[in-house]
């Protein structure tokens, strides 16, 4: 299974990939995660790859090979489209964050991304920010998205819940479980 997580530096994509990685181990798979640290974490495009299966060699995902893409932001969703397997699924948070070239007027933020992507592939677009607020904090966006993702994999829900409990700091467990459920039950 090849899962690609894309977003903007600072959005919490690393936590999402780490939860996903732990889930895959618990489910008994070989796992590799490729993360991005350093420069691009400063508000740039960030991509992490999570791959699991009987045996995983390369930690990266080529174009056309992601079974699922989890996008934290719409422009990043658009950018990631070529990586999706034909017939794969994309889950996207409808949040839009302007990149600097758009802010300075050197480029335009593409209009109607959701519509354009939907024409080409199976897209589930969700206002995860709103759901995170409902759970108690916008910071839980990543866990809402993890909930959505969980629904699209064949790993038992129990394993996801267990992993979240083990991964997030104790005082935030309830909040994060709530965020997960909100994503999962859409």
């Amino acid at each position: 299974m090849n899962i690609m997580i894309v977003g903007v530096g600072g959005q919490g994509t690393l936590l999402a990939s780490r939860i996903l990685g732990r889930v895959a181990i618990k489910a008994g798979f070989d796992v590799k995660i490729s993360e991005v640290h350093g420069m691009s974490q400063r508000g740039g495009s960030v991509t992490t790859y999570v791959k699991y299966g009987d045996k995983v060699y390369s930690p990266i995902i080529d174009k056309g090979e992601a079974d699922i893409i989890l996008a934290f932001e719409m422009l990043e969703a658009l950018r990631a489209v070529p990586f999706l397997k034909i017939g794969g699924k994309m889950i996207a948070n409808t949040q839009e964050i302007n990149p600097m070239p758009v802010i300075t007027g050197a480029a335009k933020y593409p209009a109607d991304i959701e519509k354009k992507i939907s024409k080409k592939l199976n897209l589930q677009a969700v206002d995860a920010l709103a759901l995170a607020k409902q759970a108690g904090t916008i910071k839980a966006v990543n866990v809402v998205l993890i909930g959505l993702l969980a629904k699209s994999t064949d790993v038992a829900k129990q394993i996801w819940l267990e992993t979240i409990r083990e991964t997030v700091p104790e005082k935030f467990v309830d909040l994060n479980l709530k965020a997960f459920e909100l994503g999962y039950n859409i």
Partner: protein
Amino acid sequence: MKKLMLGNEAVARGAYEAGVTVVSSYPGTPSTEITENIVKYDNIYVEWAPNEKVAAEVAVGAATGGARAMSCMKHVGLNVMADPVFTISYRGINGGLVFCVADDPGMHSSQNEQDSRHYAEAAKILMLEPSDSGECRDFTKLAYELSEKYDTPVFLRLHTRVSHSQSLVEELEPVDYRLKDYEKNPGKNVMTPANAIRAHVRVEERMAKLSELANTTDVNRIEDNGSKIGVITSGISYMYSKEALGDSVNYLKLGMVYPLPKKLIKDFAAKCDKVYVIEELDPFIENFCRQIGVDVIGKDVFTLLGEYTPAMIKKQVLGVDPVENIVMDEDAPVRPPVMCAGCPHRGTYYVLKKLGLNVFGDIGCYTLGANAPLSAMDTNLCMGAAIGEAHGIGKARGNDFAKTAVSVIGDSTFIHSGITGLINMVYNKSINTVLILDNSITGMTGHQDNPTTGYTIRKEPTKQVNLITLCKGIGVDSISVVDPFDVKGLTKTLKEETAKEEPSVIIVQRPCALLPEMRKTYSGHCVITDKCRKCKMCMQLGCPAISVDGGTVKIDTTQCNGCGLCENVCPFGAIEKED
């Protein structure tokens, strides 16, 4: 139980299991997390050194003193530590000594993509290269055994995709390593010409033995799949090759990339009709194969540039086209990294741009000042270069120009290698102005302490470099301290200092907005009130939270941290803070 670990975390684990007790490093992506993970092990002495050269020297001292020691750096850090490294190769060690060097093909976070294997050859130092986290742990331990057995420092070569990928590692118990005796041995440890001449003989004897070892070591292994096509590869390229080609070819997987195994390569190639060398960056293995008369296919079909992918290997070796993918009719605008909302550097660049100065820059978060809309940095090169460059251009173009040529350099970078540049500037009578951008942390690499922060890597309080006294001691008489968010004050100081016929230092001081203390200091967010006349002055700050929507200026409250810089630049008082 097996655990998911970053490659870097696994190297730290390997160091712990090997009985390492001293680690000295300078941060640099993608190597930083090795040293940060060492902190987990209470019995290891670990430190951030001011730069890589010092770090290497500390590790050398510890190893000479009988401990197993380590120093970690990114590829360009190896340039800085090269001097001690070349000669410790001659001296040899006592306790095991390993230098971990992380290359960054594709330049995710670097200013070049140099191939560190050339250093192994040039300095005659054994180099191991792991392919995943499991091997990171294993090879680290092996490196110490080989270091002590062959009396040599060892390089562990890492790669962004190995350092920053997580895979499974089984944790083992540490070995019981005892500090070896320290004996004075000038014949071995004092590199006078007479001793060095003898040492060089030992180095060549050692290399001959290691070349033999390369043919027999377990980490160089053949996977015979009964194919007529052979692939010689190492590191992450091995993983890409396995993914792309599976069992359809034979592999010679090299865990030891220097010295290379002559006999093993010849034997492997003899059984194949065609042999590919798959290695990112330079044709290091390929050139060796040609030298020993083995005909291989390498850089004639594979690029010298950037990272490889399984798809490109499949295409070149099997002639199989990459899988189809969905194409969008519209390009997504790029999203380059930006200074964070609240970044202190933003104020500095805003002023530098206003004044139209020629800005000689350096490496750190503040390098982002080169990007639009601030576009206020003319050059950068390597850590510390800002001061030397500004001095040089002043000497070339005369003092009138020198008054417009300022250096900007971060606190960590100044300590790393800016101090010597400043000494040179003063000693050789330049009149330039140097801005030390003191954000109280090493920002770019993810918040490491340094000698100006007052804390060690373990967050113990320690002496703090006093930048003012330091600059005074160097001979700078004109020193000022300014807050970069005090736009008026910084403008005034810069005008005054650049006009002077003497060197000046301006310490531009405000902590990084992501530091916990600052997260507490800033609160709420800024809003644009109806006093806004749409002059868009605030847009020149390049703050990710401020944008224009249909002619109206807006502040995104999810991004704004209420730092208040925009409030300071608004000429109409139209920006206010809200809780």
